[in-house]
């Protein structure tokens, strides 16, 4: 439930810029194809494997490109336009390349009253991203605000890629980042 570029008031910067135009190398071959076949066995329709397939694509490539969507569409018997319609509904599929570390800070009300806005400021400052949704000059970080991460009693929860951190404060942000460097 992350805020996209428009909500953040900036635009996601492709890093590096020509990344988006690289030809798509198929993902669903070998082990990944077998994994998808196993997933398909769980549902009465092929379409139901769409979200899992997109997750596999993103795990492999770091984001969901047009070429990737076309491959998923082909594998599941859907149209690329349909797949894109689904991708754009959800906030966790990256439609642009993002920094090596994708930082999502919860700022919804329960965390907000515990100082989440200061945590966001600290991340923006220490990663040198400067602005929400922008990738840092070294291509390592993208920081965004996210809506309720469902860990409100552990304010402020922060997701860095798939790592879920609890009770982060503005003061502990430098330590969190030091772990990644």
């Amino acid at each position, binding site marked *: *439930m*992350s*805020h996209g570029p428009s*909500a953040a008031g900036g635009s996601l910067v492709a890093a590096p810029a020509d990344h988006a135009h690289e030809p798509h190398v198929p993902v669903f071959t070998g082990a990944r194809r077998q994994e998808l076949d196993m997933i398909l066995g*769980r*549902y*009465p*329709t092929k*379409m*139901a*494997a*769409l*979200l*899992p397939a*997109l*997750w596999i694509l993103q795990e492999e490539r770091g984001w969901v490109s047009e070429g990737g969507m076309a491959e998923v569409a082909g594998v*599941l018997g859907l149209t690329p336009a349909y797949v894109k*319609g*689904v991708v754009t*509904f*959800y*906030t*966790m*599929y990256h439609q642009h390349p993002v920094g090596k570390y994708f930082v*999502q800070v919860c*700022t*919804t*009300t*329960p965390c*907000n*009253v*515990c100082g989440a806005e200061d945590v966001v400021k600290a991340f923006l400052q220490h990663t040198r991203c400067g602005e929400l949704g922008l990738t840092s000059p070294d291509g390592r970080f993208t920081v965004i605000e*996210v*809506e*309720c*991460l*469902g*860990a*409100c*009693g*552990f*304010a402020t929860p922060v*997701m860095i890629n*798939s*790592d*879920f951190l609890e009770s982060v404060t503005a003061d502990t942000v430098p330590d969190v980042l030091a772990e990644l460097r």
Partner: protein
Amino acid sequence: MGYPHKPHARESVVLSEHFGSAEARTLAGWRKRGGYQALEKALGMAPADIVSVVKDSGLRGRGGAGFPTGLKWSYMKPGDGKPHYLCCNADESEPGTFKDREIMRWTPHALVEGCALGAYAIGAETAYVYIRGEFTEPLQQMNAAVQEAYASGILGANAMGTGKRLDVHVHKGAGAYICGEETALMNSLEGKRGNPRIKPPFPAVSGVFGMPTTINNVETLVAAVEVVKRGAAWYKGFGRPDNPKSTGTKLYSVCGNVARPGNYEVPMGFPFRDFLHELCGGPLPGRKFKAVIPGGASVPIQTMEEAEATLMDYEGFVAGGTMLGSGGVIVFDDQQNMVKQIARLARFFAHESCAQCTQCREGTAWTTKIMERIRDGHGTYEDLDTLLDIGEQMTGKTICVLSDSCAVPVASGIRKFRHEFEALIPKKQGTAFVAAAVA
């Protein structure tokens, strides 16, 4: 609450008893704690008998609506020749709520057992657990538990050696609050955009994949396991004697400006005053409680006076002018500005609107703009009336209740904390307006 603190002496730990125990996460550890006894017992019963035990227990849905669980299960007609499905709603994303997360993190097998038991009771062979994508640890724990359950023959074509087929599959969401709405969840599970569906048809008639479906919250299914294991009479023993409509224990997630945030499990009818001051440790040092949202972001805000007079059950919270909802207790103290926080809630709903219905798509966005304008000191008195008017247009007019949920905190906020709104409205502007009108 079990974790990270030891349970308070006044808690009734049933579902949260094993929170914090790493061993309880494993199949062996879970069996040692009485795990899968309920499923074994259930598989020896007729499905209709399980449904009547759950009906008799008085268990009601713990996701927010409080619908009687046994009654919901009884809508699934046996022998209709169609595949039935159970969906477990583990998309927990109501701000303030993090109880299902702890159930899945600490006692994943309890949920696997609940899903298998629930599926059998409604004549289904397959249960899908839809877990929000952000819940990385609950996803890991649930995937591991499901694998263990298959490997040991609890799930599969010959579940627990009974010859019955029971499958439980974990499905990972991809970021959308609205997928916690039951019909949106089904669309999402089918590989579609998570737009809520118009009802009727209700899920019991046409749910996921167009087939009869029951959808239950995580906590509900885990509670059903205890009901089957220990009996309806035992479950009904939790609650106040003068209110048989609310039975059992309830897990509350407590967050915001409170000394000891976390999950607490108390019997229905527990005094909210004692809950906040004794169990949760009261306000932070040197501060005072100001307001509470007791059931997740979608229910009306209570003043402390109202909250302290409330008994914690479905009817008690209604009597206190609000709702039990999901049990996500958000506490605000005297250092918080209610306008700022209600504006933040409105922004949440605007961000999460699926944008199908005009009242919601436009209403949540307008509400956010006006609330933020007032917050920033550019509001007018007229804005307060406009907010209430928009809120009325957003209530009861849309496919799902997200729109209503946005209107609720705004309306209750203006009604109960009007002085905080008015304090932010520039006085000069108000005077100038009056002066111009008189001239």
